[in-house]
């Protein structure tokens, strides 16, 4: 009695229990697993390395470790000294199918002070029907509330009305500049190498900075530290193989994962001579090793390289790819202070050229950064978790170098000069439980960005022409000639209504100092990044969001409603007919203004049981006001699509049979259409509406897939394998990729004889010939990419 009172008053001595939470099967750290005291529900969640630290008054506790998809683990502990406790949790696997498990899901989404954040596990993503069987993180992300896709056949995504370059895409903390393969049909994230992905849409924590709208934090697997294992698959367009295992059991492990597409193997079958001699493939290679020196020190090295190669015999070639390298050292000071030092290098480049002949040339472009990061988490007590750290990054931009081959005498070498910048960020934040029903997460990030010589800065007049006689200013090597700085407050508040529901609010300010010169919605690999400079101010966003979170049926159903409002200053856009490629005066093409987006997101998710999935609906707008575009009138952003519905369902019909389906509906993308036409010099030229003044037809699509596990019932076999049949666009909806308005071509003028036979009726030809041969005729032409596409994939695991 006396002790209890003492404890309640807080005079009792506090002790810390800390350690790691791992998957018993492979030793992977369980990111975000929670540990809490059953009686008071005070607890913490594991960080991205699976480390946790919980400080409680001395006493006896029943600690619950829980994680979605894993059996909860309960530990009785007597906390009378600091304790190190590493736990391993077991997955809710088929071993337990006999026992009826309602799945004690956690109420993490209600409890956590963070909002506007979604974690997607690779296991969930694998169940979503995939285009051509290629399981893809970025396509899965596009099914979440608040995330718009970049149109048919694109992995580009747009979060809460932000542009695609406003997403910070990280792979083991390294920037990924262009996450697309095959011009955007697939992403660079190989399913077998990825552990999970976390998307922050708002309330972005202070440890992240540099992009306005979202953070997509993708984490690679660490490698199985228990046993040697492998996984792979053979699909229609690519095959994959992953090997992982311990180097020293429970101490060191590795993973290596590769994927290569072989669409080009079919090219020789083509009747087209040009295609026969063409090359077209991409590959990814992920590798990671980690070494646990002791309980307090661990080292991770991870690397990624991937490339697309496209070549048309000797006439043309195009290649692009990312490379990242991350080295990390975790160190735990005592049992409350977790530190991590990271060194990062990442680069993206592309090459476009003609390999042979009199016009042979290479055109290359590259961007790279080298970065040092140091992050600390101080688990002060069960009510305060303090994070602080810094990051310093040196960027090198090489927008374009044109190198003619020796055989090419027509052109000289031409280079758009390299530019350099130094970006810094430092932050501190605290997640604090205020007692009672309130929790807050408050933080501040300081960011700066400096342009560093050697540089040539063009001086523009108010018409964006270079000033005659003072066209540019040259800066010597190493000179810091321009610096932008910004303070970025971050705030999150949670008010618990009851153990099933909470209200949350958040605010964040973000600064962005690097911008992608792109005015199409597709993520073209030849887009170039450009730094802020005296000519281009940093983009800045302020976002507020409010949310209501409620779980039902013992946390089986998670639901949430969030509303947000985001205001962007200095939103980058481009003048009409801007020339973005190979333009030394690129900065003169930029027009900056304001962007406003707001919306409401509704989300229902079920993560446990035989039927899992989610329904997401977003109602949103994204509007731009740029004084020098569209005569100063506001216009819809390219990705402004007010209605966005996604339904994702997965059903374990039988032990070995899973069926899943998705349905998506989006309002049509805004498009600029002609409102008239005129004739000039024999050419019919359109007269256009306001920018983005009309909409394409709505986009909707249903996908379906079935996975059949070939493993015999209930046996825990060494080797497991499965077939997956996916059908993309099951009702073959013709979704517009682009709508083009043009003079109709005289397409039936020289109808081949066989086609006349096929078409049969003379009437058809007679009726249409005149219409199509009329040079004055104009029409709307819709291009669509994917009709119904079935695919089959064989996957294995051992």
């Amino acid at each position, binding site marked *: 009695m006396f002790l209890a009172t003492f404890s309640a008053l807080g005079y009792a001595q506090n002790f810390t229990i800390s350690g790691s939470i791992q998957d018993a099967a492979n030793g992977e750290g369980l990111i975000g697993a929670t540990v809490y005291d059953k009686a008071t529900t005070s607890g913490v969640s594991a960080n991205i390395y699976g480390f946790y630290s919980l400080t409680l008054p001395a006493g006896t506790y029943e600690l619950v470790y829980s994680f979605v998809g894993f059996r909860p683990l309960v530990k009785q502990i007597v906390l009378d000294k600091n304790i190190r406790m590493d736990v391993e949790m077991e997955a809710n696997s088929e071993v337990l199918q006999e026992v009826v498990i309602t799945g004690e899901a956690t109420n993490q989404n209600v409890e956590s002070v963070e909002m506007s954040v979604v974690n997607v596990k690779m296991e969930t993503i694998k169940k979503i029907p995939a285009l051509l069987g290629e399981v893809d993180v970025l396509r899965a992300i596009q099914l979440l509330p608040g995330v718009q896709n970049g149109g048919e056949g694109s992995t580009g995504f747009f979060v809460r009305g932000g542009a695609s370059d406003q997403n910070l895409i990280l792979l083991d903390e390294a920037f990924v500049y262009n996450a697309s393969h095959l011009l955007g049909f697939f992403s660079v994230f190989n399913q077998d190498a990825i552990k999970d992905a976390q998307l922050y849409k708002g309330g972005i924590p202070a440890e992240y900075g540099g992009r306005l709208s979202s953070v997509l934090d993708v984490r690679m697997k660490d490698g199985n530290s228990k046993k040697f294992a492998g996984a792979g698959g053979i699909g229609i367009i690519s095959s994959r193989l992953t090997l992982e295992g311990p180097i020293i059991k429970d101490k060191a492990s590795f993973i290596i994962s590769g994927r290569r597409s072989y669409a080009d193997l*079919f090219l020789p079958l083509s009747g087209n001579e040009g295609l026969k001699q063409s090359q077209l493939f991409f590959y990814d290679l992920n590798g990671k090793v980690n070494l646990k020196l002791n309980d307090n020190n661990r080292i991770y090295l991870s690397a990624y390289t991937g490339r697309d190669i496209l070549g048309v015999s000797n006439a043309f070639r195009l290649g692009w790819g990312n490379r990242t390298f991350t080295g990390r050292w975790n160190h735990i000071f005592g049992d409350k202070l977790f530190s991590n030092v990271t060194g990062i290098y990442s680069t993206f480049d592309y090459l476009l050229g003609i390999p042979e002949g009199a016009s042979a040339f290479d055109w290359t472009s590259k961007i790279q950064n080298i970065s040092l990061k140091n992050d600390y988490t101080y688990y002060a007590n069960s009510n305060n978790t303090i994070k602080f750290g810094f990051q310093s990054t040196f960027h090198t931009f090489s927008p374009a170098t044109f190198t003619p081959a020796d055989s090419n005498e027509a052109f000289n070498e031409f280079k758009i000069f390299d530019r350099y910048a130094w970006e810094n960020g430092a932050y501190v934040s605290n997640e604090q439980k205020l007692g009672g029903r309130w929790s807050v997460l408050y933080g501040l990030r300081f960011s700066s960005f400096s342009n560093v010589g050697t540089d040539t800065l063009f001086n523009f007049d108010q018409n964006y022409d270079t000033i005659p006689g003072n066209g540019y200013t040259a800066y010597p090597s190493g000179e810091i000639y321009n610096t932008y700085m910004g303070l970025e407050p971050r705030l999150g508040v949670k008010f618990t209504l009851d153990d099933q529901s909470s209200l949350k609010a958040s605010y964040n300010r973000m600064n962005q100092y690097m911008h992608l010169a792109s005015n199409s919605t*597709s993520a073209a690999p030849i887009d170039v990044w450009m730094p802020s400079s005296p000519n281009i101010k940093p983009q800045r966003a302020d976002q507020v969001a409010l949310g209501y979170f409620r779980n039902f049926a013992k946390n089986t159903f998670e639901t949430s409603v969030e509303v947000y409002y985001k205001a962007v200053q200095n939103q980058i856009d481009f003048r009409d007919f801007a020339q973005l490629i190979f333009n030394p005066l690129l900065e003169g093409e930029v027009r900056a203004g304001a962007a406003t987006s707001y919306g409401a997101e509704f989300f229902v998710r079920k993560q446990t049981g035989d039927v899992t999935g989610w329904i997401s609906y977003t109602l949103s707008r994204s509007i731009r006001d740029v004084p020098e575009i569209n005569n100063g009138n506001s216009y819809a952003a390219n990705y402004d699509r007010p209605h966005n519905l996604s339904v994702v369902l997965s059903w374990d019909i039988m032990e070995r049979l899973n069926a899943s389906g998705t349905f998506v509906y989006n309002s049509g993308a805004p498009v600029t259409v002609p*409102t*008239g036409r*005129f004739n*000039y010099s024999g050419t*019919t030229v359109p*007269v256009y*509406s306001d920018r983005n003044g009309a909409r394409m037809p709505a986009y909707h699509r249903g996908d379906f897939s079935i996975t059949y596990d070939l493993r015999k019932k209930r046996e825990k076999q060494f080797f497991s394998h499965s077939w997956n049949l996916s059908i993309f666009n099951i009702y073959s909806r013709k979704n517009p990729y*682009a709508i083009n308005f043009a003079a109709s071509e005289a397409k039936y003028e020289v109808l081949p004889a066989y086609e006349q036979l096929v078409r049969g009726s003379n009437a058809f030809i007679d009726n249409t010939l005149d219409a199509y041969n009329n040079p004055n005729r104009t029409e709307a032409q819709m291009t669509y990419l994917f009709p119904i596409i079935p695919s089959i994939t064989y996957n294995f695991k051992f």
Partner: protein
Amino acid sequence: MKTAVYLILSALLLTSCTEVIDFDLNDSQTRIVIEGEITNEQKAHEIRVTESTSYYYSEEPPAVSGATVTISDGANTFVLTEVDTLPGVYRTEPTVEGKLGERYTLNVTYDNQTYTAVDTMRGVVDMESVFVVPVEDTLFTTDTFYWIIMFGQENPGLGDHYVWDYYLNGVLQTEPLVEKAFGRDDFVDGASPSEGWPVFNNIPYDAFEVGDSISLEIRSVSGEYFDFIIESLLNTAFRGGFFDGPPANVSSNIDNGAIGFFRASAVSRKKTRVFF
């Protein structure tokens, strides 16, 4: 880039399809469209005035008859009269001759509205000689194309813009706009008469016969006119790529909401024959 996307799609054993659809367009009010020029030649200079139409209108553009059209150099005003047989086409007296360096103002008055455009006549390259030669293209194909090559002294100093047309046996071959050649002097500034300029290099081999008469015409134009052509092409012949930027209205040098372009051009012309 378009080719690249098609290549990828074919390789994925897919085809992207294009089909004509019904797409309702909001038809705006019509606008006055002006096209024409004054040159340094002594002739009847021509201005054509039409109206814009709804986008799906599939006839010749409606002519604007009964407008008052004048061209002035500040000191003299030339009145253009409508050609009886060609409604909407207005011509000066055949004695009018533009001068280099002169600033010309076009005035079109119609339906109580006046539309004005201004352009200055710049110098052009005096063509010294023109050749038509067949050239085998070894890069992409093995086909042979006719090239039209000109020689002449380019005016030193950047900022010159040119447009080229050619005539086959007296018939203009370079309409619509995409058929024309146009260029800036960035790479040829001050080029001497010994350096040939391959003006046209993609004329199919079967377009000409030995003995045909070819006449090449070069015009000086303003940078604004050059942009106008590029923008018109970006909206028409060059459009439809997968990575197009958003379309936008082409610029114009005519005020009061009219569209089109009035230009003052110096012209040089040279004739040759097809020998090979």
